[in-house]
C-alpha cells in the first residue's frame, strides 16, 4: 500500500519499517495459478460444460462480492482475488453437467451467506466454496450427483448410441456398492480419466498445483500430509478398498491440498494443522464407509472447520523460554 502523507511531513509509523512485500492478493493469485493444471485437466476431460460452469461461478462470485460490499457500505474487496478464488474452487467442486443457474445460486450463497454475512475475508467460519457445495448438495441433490463421463469415454459412447453426453457412476459409488471391479485402473485415477467433480479427478494435476503452493510457501505440508496419510491408513486397516483408490478418487486430493488448507478456516499452528488434517481424513473415511453418501470429503472438512477454533486453543505455541 502507498502511504498517505502531506508533502512536507515525514511518514511516522511504528516499527518495523521494512516489509517482505507479500500481499493477500499475491497469495490468492498463487492459489489460482496452482489450480490451473487441475482446471485445465477438468476442461480436457469434461469439455465445454466445465468451461461454462467455471466462468459462471467465478463471474457470479466476483459480482456478488462487489454487490455485498456496496450494500454494506464498505470498501470493495474484489481486488484481493479471494472471491474469484472461491468461484474457481466452487466450480472445481461441482459436476460438469450442473445446470448453470444452480451454479449461480451456489456462487451467490458462497459469497453472500458463507462469507460476507460474517464480515468478509478472514471472518468466515466455514470454507465458502464447501459451504456452498453442501448447500447445493442438499438443495439440488439430483443434479449434484449426476456425473458426466469423461470426454474420451463419452465419445465412444456417443458413437455407439448417438447422444450428447453420457452420465455414469463415480468410482466411489462402485466402492460403496462393493463393485470394486468397476473402479477404473490406476493410470486413469492418476490422470483423471474418471467421472467426478470438474477439479477433483486429476491427481497428477492436483499434485503439481500442491507442489507449487509448497514451493511458494503458501501452504505447509502438515494438512495435506496428515489428511492423505489418514485416509490411506484407514483404507489399509478397514480393507474397504485399496488405499490408492480411496486417496485418488473423490475429493481427497482436491480437499487435502486446496480446501482444507484454506487459511481462514484451518488452524494456525503446525500441531493444529496435523490434528485438523487427521480429523478431516478420519471423518471423510467414516462418512464414506458408514454415511448415506458415497463421498464425505466436503462434509468432513466443514465439520473440522467448525471445531477449528477449538483445535487452535488446544495447540497454542509455547513461547521460547517458557516452562
Amino acid at each position: 500500500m502507498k502511504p498517505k502523507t502531506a508533502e512536507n511531513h515525514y511518514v511516522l509509523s511504528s516499527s518495523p519499517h521494512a516489509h517482505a512485500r507479500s500481499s493477500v492478493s499475491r497469495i490468492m493469485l498463487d492459489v489460482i495459478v496452482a489450480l490451473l493444471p487441475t482446471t485445465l485437466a477438468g476442461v480436457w476431460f469434461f469439455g465445454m460444460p466445465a468451461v461454462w460452469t467455471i466462468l459462471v461461478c467465478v463471474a457470479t462470485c466476483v459480482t456478488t462480492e462487489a454487490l455485498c460490499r456496496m450494500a454494506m457500505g464498505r470498501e470493495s474487496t474484489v481486488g484481493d482475488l479471494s472471491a474469484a478464488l472461491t468461484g474457481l474452487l466452487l466450480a472445481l467442486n461441482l459436476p460438469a453437467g450442473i445446470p448453470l443457474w444452480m451454479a449461480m445460486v451456489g456462487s451467490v450463497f458462497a459469497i453472500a451467506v458463507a462469507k460476507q454475512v460474517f464480515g468478509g475475508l478472514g471472518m468466515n467460519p466455514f470454507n465458502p466454496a464447501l459451504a456452498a457445495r453442501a448447500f447445493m448438495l442438499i438443495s439440488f441433490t439430483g443434479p449434484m450427483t449426476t456425473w458426466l463421463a469423461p470426454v474420451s469415454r463419452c465419445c465412444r459412447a456417443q458413437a455407439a448410441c448417438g447422444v450428447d453426453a453420457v452420465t455414469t457412476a463415480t468410482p466411489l459409488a462402485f466402492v460403496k456398492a462393493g463393485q470394486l471391479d468397476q473402479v477404473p485402473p490406476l493410470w486413469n485415477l492418476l490422470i483423471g480419466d474418471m467421472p467426478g467433480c470438474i477439479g477433483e479427478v486429476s491427481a497428477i494435476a492436483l499434485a503439481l498445483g500442491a507442489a507449487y503452493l509448497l514451493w511458494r510457501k503458501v501452504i505447509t505440508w502438515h494438512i495435506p500430509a496428515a489428511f492423505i496419510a489418514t485416509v490411506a491408513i484407514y483404507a489399509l486397516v478397514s480393507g474397504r478398498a485399496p488405499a490408492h483408490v480411496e486417496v485418488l478418487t473423490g475429493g481427497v486430493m482436491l480437499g487435502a491440498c486446496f480446501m482444507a488448507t484454506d487459511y481462514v478456516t484451518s488452524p494456525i499452528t503446525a500441531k493444529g494443522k496435523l490434528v485438523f488434517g487427521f480429523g478431516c481424513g478420519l471423518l471423510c473415511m467414516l462418512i464414506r464407509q458408514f454415511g448415506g453418501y458415497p463421498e464425505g470429503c466436503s462434509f468432513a472438512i466443514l465439520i473440522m472447520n467448525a471445531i477449528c477454533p477449538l483445535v487452535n486453543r488446544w495447540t497454542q505455541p509455547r513461547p521460547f523460554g517458557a516452562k
Partner: protein
Amino acid sequence: MKTVKSKFKFKGGVHPDYNKELARDGAIERLPLPKELAVSMSQHLGAPARCLVKAGDFVRRGQVIGEKAGFISVCVRSPADGKVKAVEKRVGAAGAMADAVLIDTTASLPEDAPPPPVLAPMDWSSATREELLGRIEEAGICGMGGAGFPTAVKLNPPPGKRCEYLVLNGAECEPYLTADYRVMLERAPRIRLGVEIMRKVLGLPAVRIAIEANKPEAIAAMEAAFADIEGNVEIVVLPVLYPQGSEKHQIYATVGRVVPEPPALPIDVGCVVENVGTVAAIADAVELGEPLLERVTTVSGDAVATPKNVLAPSGTRYADLLEFCGGATERPAKVISGGTMMGFAVSSLDIGTTKTTSGLLFLSRRRVFQYSSQACINCGRCLRACPMNLNPAEISKAMEVDDVKTAEDAHVMDCIECGACSFGCPAYRAITQFCRKAKNSIRARIAAERAAAAAAKASDGAAKKEAK
C-alpha cells in the same frame, strides 16, 4: 581461541533486505564539531538523568550535565565546550520526550571558566573490580547496541549469580547498519582490551564473540585481535538471520542456553551480552580516561547522497549528519533513528543523536509502505516468523478490540518487538504495534496495582498506628 559455527538455531526469524552494501565499505569518518548540540538526558534505558545545568551556563567537555537518577540510569556528560542555550523537551533514546540540553559550541568561554574535568587513565590490570565498575559508571556507559541498558549495572550481577559466559554481540542483524561492523574492523585492539577488562570485572568468564556469517572481514579482524588471548574464548559464526542480535537468541545461538520468561535476565542463565561498540567504549574509559561522549552512527538509506559511518558527538542534530553525508538526493519520505526493523520514525531533523543511535536512515517514498486495517487471513506467517514462538495473529486480533486479557494469556509480555511478524504479514497488519500496545497497557496496569497496594499498605499502617 578458535572459530566455530553456531550449533544452535532458534525457531523463526526472517530475512529482510540487508542493504548493508550502501555504507559497509566506508571507513569511520569524524564529524567536525557541530555548531549546536542537543544533548538528551534520556540516552539510555531507565530513569532519565537529572539535568544539572540551565540556560546561560557554560559547560566544559566531559563535565557532568546530567546526574544518574536511580539504580537503572547513567550520567550524561557534555560532549563539548560551550554555552547552554536552553533546556527543552526533545525526543530521547526510547522515543519518549525528555529534557535536552542545547549547547552552543561556538560560544567563547569566560576566562575564569573551570578547566574541563579529567578522568585519570587507569591501569586495568592493577585496578580493583570496584574501581573498574566505578569508572564504567562515571564514564556514562550504557549498551550501545540499541536498548541502552546501563553497563555498570549489567556488569555487576546480584549476589548469588555468576557470569559464566560473556557474549560479545557483533551480529548487527539490523538492515542498513554497519557501525558495529566498522568498529570491529577498525578498532579490534580496543575491543580486545575491553574484553579483558570485562573479564576481570565479571570474574573471568568464558568469552563468545558472535558475528553473522556475512561479515567475513569482521570475523578475520576479531581472529587477528584475539589470536593470542588465553582462556576459553571462541568466535561463533552465526547464520544470517534476523533477529540474530537479540540477546536471548544470541545466548541460545552461542551457548545453547535458554533465558526463561521475563522477569528473568541473561544473568539467570549465567550470561552477560554486550555490544562490541560498548566494549570498545569501556576500553577507552579505563585506559584513556575518555568518557562516552561520541559514537559511530551509520547514516544510510536510498535518499542519502553518500552513506557513511560517522563518528559524532552525542547530541549531533540529524540535520548535521545528513549534511555531512552530502545531503539528500531526494526528499526523504521517512527518517528512522536505528535500523528498519526496530528503529523509530522521527518527525524532525532537529533531534540530537544519543549513545544508542546506531543508525540514521533516510528512505525515499519507494521504500515506504503503510500498514492497513485489513483483516487477518490466518495465514500463520507471523507465527512461523516469531523468534519467541508466540502467536502474534491472536494477539493482534485481540488488541484490535482492546482485549488485553487475551493478549496477556498469549504471553505478549515475552514479545521482544523485533518486528518479524509485521515484516511478513501479507495483510499489512501492524502486529508489532499491537503487541507494544498490549505490553504498555499491561505495564500500566501492574504499576497502578502496585501503587494501589502501596497506598493501601500505607493507610493500613496509619490506621494501625491510630489504633495503638
